[in-house]
């Protein structure tokens, strides 16, 4: 699964730590997501999208194999 978290983070001028704080997860989680090592739960994905003011599909995209 591809994600645009890093891009959106840059647009909103947030560090990983700040984003983690706002969402209520650890910084490891944000980092793992950005590196593609972790697929977030639905709730987490929705929270992140909501924080960035975007739709979930704008931030997270299914890859072709999935």
């Amino acid at each position, binding site marked *: 699964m591809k994600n645009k978290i890093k891009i959106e983070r840059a647009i909103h001028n947030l560090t990983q730590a700040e984003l983690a704080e706002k969402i*209520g*997860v650890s*910084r*490891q989680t944000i*980092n*793992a997501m950005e590196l593609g090592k972790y697929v977030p739960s639905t709730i*987490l994905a929705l929270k992140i999208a909501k924080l960035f003011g975007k739709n979930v599909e704008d931030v997270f995209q299914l890859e072709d194999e999935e």
Partner: protein
Amino acid sequence: MRTSLLFSHRYKIWGILMSLTGLLFTFLSTYGEVQLKLLELRSEQKSKGFFEMPINFTDEIACLILIVGLLLLGFSAEKKEDERISQIRLNALQWAMYLHYILLAISIIFIHGIYFLNILFLNVFLPLIIFIIRFHWIIFNENRRLLNEK
């Protein structure tokens, strides 16, 4: 893994202390013949067979303390519990199971007779220990990666 099945983070330090104490005394009493006078059984009552009471409870108590300590250490919640930590915990549990049974299979093949009893004894604690090591190793690596990135 549901957070409600985990112990509070406060218990982690107890887990460490109990594990180390238990580990020390388990090996001392089993292999070093150390017995604590404190844990001597006073009565002369002895039932035969499976439930025969030992005179001294040092090794039994030590093993129990070790088991409880490892459980507390392994299953106390992190300071910040989130879904990533749950996933890591699950991964570490799987690893522990696989590695434990692979090692057991290898020792079944290569170790026989009375020496195998030592392996069986280690088997009581090995899954928990592997799990604890693997879990904290992953967390350590992730933290280190974070530090490098910042």
